[in-house]
């Protein structure tokens, strides 16, 4: 029985971690280039809506993902136009994106589909299913339950998300554009002096950010829920933000933070009303609040130090 429990907790941890991870990586890329991104939540929400609308009308997985990425990139461009080109306040712009996304997805959803803001579900053939169907249910035996159902039962986006951790790390730490992107988040004047365009780099970072947010939104619809419902992200974008800070703006630690928060989420569902010997019943709200508490404690410097990129949030003014 134990191996079945471990296997299914592992599987659900990976499932809920995936959108967090994609979104948190999006945050890492944007913030390492010096652009604060509070709009993760809104971009993921709007991307999920786009994936659901395009996926259900076009009966195509590719179309859904494409639409999601395009919408998220468009919102990233808007953020860039306000904050990079016109040096507006990055926090305010992020808040605006979240509000517009929360409102407009419902307005369009009700106008287009007349289902109280929901979209029709995407076809079963459009949904992303596990790469191998052999382990869809936790079987018996340690291998079947933990390795099979726990690790090998997932869809392509789950594996892609974890592969992208390595991808983003390689890009940031081992490539020339990645080095420049990090430099522009620490000392934009230096990058400018070297003859590289600061806005171009920041726009580039925002495009990667849009791509990743688009994937996160697609996952919610194409792998998790089948249809869009109002405010379906339910604060996941902010948990991703917290995970990014918890991971100190680095891909690998961010992944561990996402796994921790995903595990807490998976655990919260299972611990509902369960009494733990010695502790008693743990309130679900406490487990759900743990990511936020941990992030606050980390930011306050009680467990290690979280140092943000130096030029984070500062618009770059080219000196004459």
């Amino acid at each position: 029985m134990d191996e079945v429990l471990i296997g299914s907790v592992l599987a659900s941890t990976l499932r809920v971690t995936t959108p967090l991870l994609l979104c948190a990586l999006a945050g890492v890329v944007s913030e390492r280039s010096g652009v604060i991104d509070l709009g993760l939540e809104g971009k993921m929400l709007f991307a999920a809506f786009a994936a659901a609308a395009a996926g259900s009308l076009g009966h195509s997985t590719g179309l859904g993902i494409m639409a999601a990425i395009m919408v998220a990139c468009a919102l990233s461009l808007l953020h860039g136009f306000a904050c990079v080109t016109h040096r507006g306040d990055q926090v305010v712009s992020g808040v605006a994106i979240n509000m517009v996304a929360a409102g407009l997805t419902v307005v369009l959803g009700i106008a287009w589909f007349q289902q109280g803001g929901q979209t029709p579900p995407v076809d079963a053939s459009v949904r992303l299913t596990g790469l191998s169907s052999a382990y869809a249910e936790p079987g018996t035996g340690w291998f079947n339950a933990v390795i099979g159902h726990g690790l090998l039962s997932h869809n392509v986006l789950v594996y892609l998300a974890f592969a992208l951790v390595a991808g983003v790390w390689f890009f940031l730490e081992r490539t020339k554009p990645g080095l420049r992107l990090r430099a522009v988040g620490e000392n934009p004047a230096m990058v400018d002096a070297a003859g590289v365009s600061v806005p171009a780099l920041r726009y580039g970072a925002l495009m990667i950010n849009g791509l990743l947010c688009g994937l996160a939104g697609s996952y919610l619809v194409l792998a998790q829920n089948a249809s869009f419902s109002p405010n379906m992200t339910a604060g996941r974008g902010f948990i991703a933000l917290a995970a990014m800070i918890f991971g100190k703006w680095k891909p690998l630690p961010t992944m561990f933070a996402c796994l921790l928060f995903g595990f807490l989420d998976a655990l919260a569902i299972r611990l509902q009303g369960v009494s733990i010997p010695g502790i008693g019943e743990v309130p679900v709200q406490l487990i759900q609040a743990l990511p936020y508490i941990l992030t606050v404690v980390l930011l306050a410097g009680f467990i290690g130090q979280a140092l943000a990129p130096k030029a984070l949030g500062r618009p770059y003014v080219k000196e004459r």
Partner: protein
Amino acid sequence: MSGQAISLPRWIDVGLLPLWNLMIAMLVAGAVVLAIGHSPLQALTVLLNGALGSVRGIGYTLYYTTTFIFTGLAVAVAIHGGLFNIGGEGQATVGGLGVALMALALGPLLPAPLLLPLLVLSAAVFGMLWAAIPAYLQAWRGSHIVITTIMFNFLAASLNAYLLVNWLRPKGGMSVESAEFAESARMPALHELAARFGIELPSSPLNLSLVLALLACVFVAWFLWKSRAGYALRSVGSAPRAAHYAGINPKLQVLIAMGLSGALAGMVGVNEISGVQGKLTLDFVAGAGFTGIAVSLMGRNHPVGIILASLLFGVLYQGGVEVSFELPGFSREMVVTAQGLIVLFAGAMATVSAPMFAKLYSKFANKKGA
């Protein structure tokens, strides 16, 4: 474009530019309305009629206005201290919790004239304490106020849910809300007061909290521009190094700015919990904390501007409900969209049009001079 600051005359900077930005936001919102197959003009007519066309509608509009004045002032006070308080939502939630705990504990014991001031005080103190923790962490531990206050929004929602589900819900109650308060813990509604003087008013959630909100505006104006403490706060907000050099402790000012900000946000609890609900509920703030950001941006962080902007958003919220009743397939979330567009154009992109106005103005001024 050169990096030099564009200097515009005050009437353009304070009057024309915000109105221009508001107009762009409204035009985009109108385009959205058009895109979903409705007439923007018809929607606007229904909206204005619903918000201002009847005494009852005006009552609802002013009730929304009350809440937005509190959250708008909260954002503004923090901004004058150089801080972006995005946690109005959480501070308002905890303020409502303060009202509820006081009302449930003392409601059966005290008469209204004694209890109501205590409720206001409790809302302010609870909101203040909830904002003081992120302020302390910012000033003494170096964590970023924006991130911490966001986290505290979620923590407030969790705390409220936990207390309601596990402690405050009456035994056997099905819905997640506290017991009803005693009558003495209810902020009197305006139509009830008017009835005492023999004036018949249709019932609306508008209550005496509006007076409290206007008093708060007067207090904030006096505090920021007439008091020594407010001067210290503003100097830290605009020039922290200079203020420090002049002997002002910036850390203390962070605490004062956020404390006052949290107290103002907490008073939303008086309007919503004591004034309207009469019991503690889940999610009663319903995004008003974020609307406060839009209100403060539109109102240029000044109490007079905040009253006007709160009225604008009051009209939008009340009118939006009416439009969603009248026009089939029209969602009241359109108001949230419009609010987001206002934050985008009047906040994040506030200076996009400034160069154009500068050019127009210099042309105009040159002509006059020649």
